[in-house]
């Protein structure tokens, strides 16, 4: 990430205080979020209701400070709203609410819901002959939730090539993923890639790689020592 952009996002994030326990979650996702909104997603503040837009679903609703910061940097949110974060009447809370924030595609917070919604969204876009793609961000710890695995399996069977799942792997899962997270998707028929979650070019290549006839899983690894 360019130093100037990193500084701008850090400045925006610092305006949201009071959820420090999730700083690590926010710090882990910021590069993925920036690459998606800066270089991949076909959506702007003027097209949040366009039926052909790309959809980004933050399944891992914890630590959305990075998400809000990127949305603010890209013009989806008024910067001054960041100062109202978690106050009564603010649209910005510790878990995002799609009804309160234009451009936020799903309300999330309870883990393990985004992938099911993402599968349905990808199916709906296919049924409606829409061009949009669906990107779902989950955490490696969140993958403990069994509901994810219903969605992972059926997405592979249905060949949802409009669907990309980004797993931000910051080693949060209490019992780990023996053999690697990508393996879990690979056996269900997904196209998979594992990349450095700080390498913007690598993330971009993985997000835009062709995967005809099957969904894509991008595991973005984050070294724990980077945010301590």
């Amino acid at each position, binding site marked *: 990430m360019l130093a100037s952009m990193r500084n701008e996002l850090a400045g925006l994030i610092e305006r949201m205080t009071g959820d420090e326990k999730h700083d690590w979650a926010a710090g882990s996702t910021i590069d993925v979020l920036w690459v998606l909104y800066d270089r991949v997603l076909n959506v702007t503040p003027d097209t949040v209701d366009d*039926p052909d837009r790309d959809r980004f679903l933050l399944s891992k609703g914890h630590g959305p400070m990075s998400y809000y910061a990127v949305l603010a940097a890209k013009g989806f949110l008024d910067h001054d709203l960041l100062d109202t974060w978690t106050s009564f009447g603010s649209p910005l809370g510790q878990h995002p*609410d*799609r*009804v309160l924030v234009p451009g936020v*595609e*799903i*309300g999330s917070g*309870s883990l393990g*819901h985004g*992938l*099911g*919604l*993402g*599968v*349905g*969204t*990808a*199916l*709906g*876009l*296919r*049924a*409606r002959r*829409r061009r949009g793609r669906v990107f779902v961000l989950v955490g490696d710890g969140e993958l403990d939730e*069994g*509901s994810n695995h*219903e*969605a992972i*399996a*059926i997405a592979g*069977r*249905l060949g949802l090539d409009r669907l990309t799942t980004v797993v931000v792997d910051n080693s949060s899962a209490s019992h780990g993923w023996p053999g690697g997270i990508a393996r879990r998707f690979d056996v269900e028929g997904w196209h998979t890639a594992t990349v450095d979650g700080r390498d913007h070019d690598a993330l971009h290549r993985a997000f835009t790689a062709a995967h005809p006839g099957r969904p894509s899983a991008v595991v973005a690894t984050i070294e724990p020592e980077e945010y301590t």
Partner: protein
Amino acid sequence: MRDVFVHTVTDALDTDPRLAVVTADISSAAFDDARARHPDRVVNLGIREQAMIGVAGGLALTGLRPVVHSYAPFLVERPFEQLKLDLGHQDVGAVLVSIGGSYDAPASGRTHQSPADVALLDTLPGWTVHVPGHPDEVEPLLRDAIAGTGRVYLRLSTRENTTAHPIGRFSPLRQGSRGVVLAVGPTLDTVLDVTSTLDVTVLYASTIRPFDHAGLLAAVAGSRPNVVLVEPYLAGTSAHGVGEALADVPHRVRSLGVRRDVEVRAYGTPPEHDVVHGLDADGIAASIRAFL
């Protein structure tokens, strides 16, 4: 009722491009022909009930109208948080259609019984709940639900009344002065039978949410304010609806339904379970006579 459901939805799929069907194996084969014609809008997910509701939420986010179908415990109880979050919190709609109900198949045991389905949905805002008592009531209720955008629960049953009755608001079927008996869905025939010699008003409801406050209030205005609720699911599920309708009227309430105080560890037949829950003719008659 299930046959009417399948026929109605299959027919609607051909004319309504918004409509989609999501199943989790149960009844999936009944939609094979529809799936062949509309493979992108008729989806069987396998035995994945959490995904079933999540997928329905995602479909609704793209503007489709999902109809989601399974056995009641697997449609409402198992994926309850998905109902709360993937539909309600996302502010999208769906039509849930269940079979099995409270104890339509008691030989299957407790795992296949869901007497608390309506009570659970009642904890969430914005749900319409239909409890038809006859197959002929199913199609108009279903077509109305499909045409809408909200969250609707259609509770089908193998227990049926002998004739269909008007749908929508509470329907007065008999007038009396000693009290009002509100019969929900398939409980009606038994209620009509046991009250045939009693001086009571009988109301029929195939739609129990939203609760028809005006309908009950009007019925009570012509009778003593003694209300007996007869519901084919958890006893007292709609007692708060009675309380809200009659907030300014001193009244008495007796709630009949599936017992809350015991898990009935027995197989057998639905009529045998009716006896255990006091929902057979003798049980309902005794309760009403004692109350009045």
